[in-house]
């Protein structure tokens, strides 16, 4: 019963979101075909009114809004995300080509930042109120408060432009030829290093604080006293007895956080011209490509909902007390 209720909830949320995805872009002023101005220095070919009418009819934008909505939902259930107006390509294939890059940096950065946060947090909690704890604490606070794109810009200017250790942009060397697959992986890691680092730096603080707090609570528990009374060494106490109990809120946070990591990734991608979904989204909004916007938002929404759902399941698994 409970399970059905939850699934129903998810379905309702999903429908509300796709409706918003559909209507908000279309209610914004402007359309995909009117270009009266351009960025400084750039030229734009303009369309006459007749051409605009023609294009609108071609993409079905001349129909009443509710009819377009009906078509959209109908096509969605047939698995058809539509055809991008600006890019002249099926939305699903555009997204597929790019989303993999974004998922790559997001997943890697979540894994790294959560691990780092958990361990450093546990370490800090163990040494709480000592000098080292205070130093780590302040560093973490600072980094968690700087927006990720700002960190990204500092990294770009410092490590890529200044030192020249990393490429300035892109996800892979263009027109590169590789002797073997390892060289290619190396190239991809090399390109992805700074975007991932920027995300890790901005994410770790949050995990650290959570892990530290949770660990401090756990450390004050009676069973920790028992553990040290048994004469176990510190490492064993922290990792076997402490961390196992302290980690639960962190796990929940990892999943809940996914939406905001995506948000951060989108900005970081723009800084590094990383070929992920973030740059695509910005472009789609700027040119009012309704179909593509819907497709991207839909994908992000499905991803976040799935992650919430997983968070539910995982938390139940780890801690049966969660209901």
């Amino acid at each position, binding site marked *: 019963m409970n399970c059905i209720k939850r699934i129903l909830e998810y379905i309702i949320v999903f429908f509300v979101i796709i409706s918003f995805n559909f209507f908000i872009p279309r209610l914004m*002023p402007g359309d995909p075909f009117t270009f009266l101005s351009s960025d400084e*220095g750039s030229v734009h*070919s303009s369309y006459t009114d007749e051409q605009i009418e023609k294009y609108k009819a071609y993409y079905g934008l001349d129909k009443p809004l509710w009819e377009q909505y009906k078509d959209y939902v109908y096509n969605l259930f047939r698995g058809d995300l539509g055809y991008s107006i600006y890019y002249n390509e099926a939305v699903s294939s555009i997204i597929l080509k790019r989303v993999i890059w974004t998922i790559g940096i997001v*997943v890697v950065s979540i894994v790294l930042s959560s691990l780092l946060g958990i361990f450093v947090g546990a370490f800090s909690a163990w040494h709480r109120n000592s000098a080292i704890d205070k130093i780590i604490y302040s560093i973490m606070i600072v980094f968690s408060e700087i927006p990720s794109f700002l960190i990204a810009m500092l990294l770009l200017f410092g490590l890529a432009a200044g030192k020249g250790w990393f490429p300035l942009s892109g996800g892979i060397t263009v027109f590169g030829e590789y002797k073997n697959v390892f060289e290619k992986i190396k190239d991809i890691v090399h390109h992805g290093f700074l975007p991932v680092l920027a995300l890790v730096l901005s994410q770790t603080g949050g995990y650290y604080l959570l892990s530290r707090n949770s660990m401090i609570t756990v450390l004050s528990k009676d069973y920790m006293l028992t553990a040290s009374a048994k004469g176990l060494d510190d490492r064993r106490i922290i990792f076997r007895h402490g961390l196992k109990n302290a980690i639960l809120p962190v796990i929940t946070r990892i999943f809940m956080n996914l939406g905001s990591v995506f948000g951060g990734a989108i900005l970081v991608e723009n800084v590094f011209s990383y070929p992920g979904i973030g740059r695509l989204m910005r472009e789609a909004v700027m040119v009012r490509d309704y179909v593509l916007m819907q497709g991207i938002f839909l994908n992000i929404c499905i991803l976040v909902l799935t992650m919430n759902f997983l968070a539910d399941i995982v938390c139940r698994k780890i801690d049966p007390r969660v209901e």
Partner: protein
Amino acid sequence: MKKGFKFLIFIMIAAMLLSGCSNEKNVAINQKEETVAKEENKEPVEINLQGGDWGYPSPYTHYSRGPGIFKMRLIFDSLLERGEEGLIPWLAESWDISDDGRLYTFKIRQGVKWQDGEPMTAEDVKFSFEYYSKYPPVSDDLGISENNYIEKIEVVDENIIKIQVNEPNATLLERFGTARIIPKHIWSDVDDPTKFTDSKAVIGCGPYILTDYNEEQGAYRFEAFKDYWGPKQKVDVIKFVPVSDSLLAFENGEIDLTGITPDVLSKYENTPQYKVLESPAYWGYKLALNMEKRPEFKDKNLRQALAYAIDKEELVEKVARGAARVGSAGYLPVEHIWYNKNIKQYDFDIDKAKKLLDNKTYNFTLLTGDSNPELRIAELMKINFEKAGINIEVKSVDSKSRDAAIKNGDYEMALNGYGGWGGDPDMLREQYRSKNREKTIFSGIPGYSNEKINKLCEEQLHEMNEEKRKEIVFELQEEIAEEIPQIPIYNTTGYVVFRPEKYDGWKHVFNHHEVTHNKISYLEME
């Protein structure tokens, strides 16, 4: 726990591998030509330029902005080409326009080959024009899909094509001359060209072949076409690579040319390893007045007062940091080939503005976009307008919303900027003639109609004698400057910097400001 961790690592590696794989699917690749190292000892010239995704460069699938258009033009040639002084013969060796201005005869060059080896003939030209009337391309030079002025196209023999039009029109030569010629043997059975993204869609008869295109990275690679009919390519390979910050990329040697702001100009000027070019001022901002919404603007004195109350010199200095020319009241910018310098000038003069206003005060809202220069121009104008007794409320929205408002006539005053000010003077007609019958891309000037301007606009369009047409356009500019129905603010110039030792062939053409967008920049022209 441990298992979960391993799983995560697995996912992470899988994601990275997959992302690598998707990259391998670089589209296109016609016959991948071996780079032609023409003379012995001579290294092939390879240049890198700022990339970004501008679409698959067929006439139907590139994106509608400049960088998309010119990439397509590297592959596709046209009857004429833009030279430094004017239009020059290209696929058409010569042409003739009948005295009544209704019959165009083009002599098509012999021995021109498509990039797949087929010969290019007059049939292809006829086919292209007819195809464009059915399916307008992204950059629609002909513009015949809704108002077909072509009455008949006749292929006399393999090399001669005659085009009969319904009335004399001075803009047609450029239209015929710049429309891209596409191969009949490929496109004749394509009936949804916007979805035609086969590798055959990028076969033209131009100087460059597309060998690689990577959409998500925004990378292109073009190679010189060996059997090109025309001027020898000075650049063997043109690569467009993704950059995050173009100046950083230029400093690092990743790209060989970049646009720079006046703030960093001094670093590159007078340094032997760099060369700096100033671009002609063919991109500009204007202040539009909506006379339908605020009939007060129909009063010429108010309009002239506004023009006097804008300190354009100050705007050029403070906003464009000197990299601009003060806008001409007659619309055609000072560097336009047909600019008339004897028109009325509106030098900044608050007292004159006050006198013209005759102690009346006004309140208007000014609509602008949200870019930095636009906001600064708006705020600076506001200060001076207030001194003259005109109170302005600045309303800033995103660029698309502003465009929509302008199109729908939903504004009082609006500031916007766009390119193409170096084009055919017929743009004066598109801008200033009253719009009651026809629809055009520009909203025109709502509520404005001036008989003399309307008449001159029509006259210049139908005058086939260039000298006579020039006279009319000069008179038209004088009339416009006196009437000042909208106010050009300034035209930006901007600078590009490059390393001459790498490549030094960059040229400007007579009507465009971007050196990289000109075909002749890459070719050996006498």
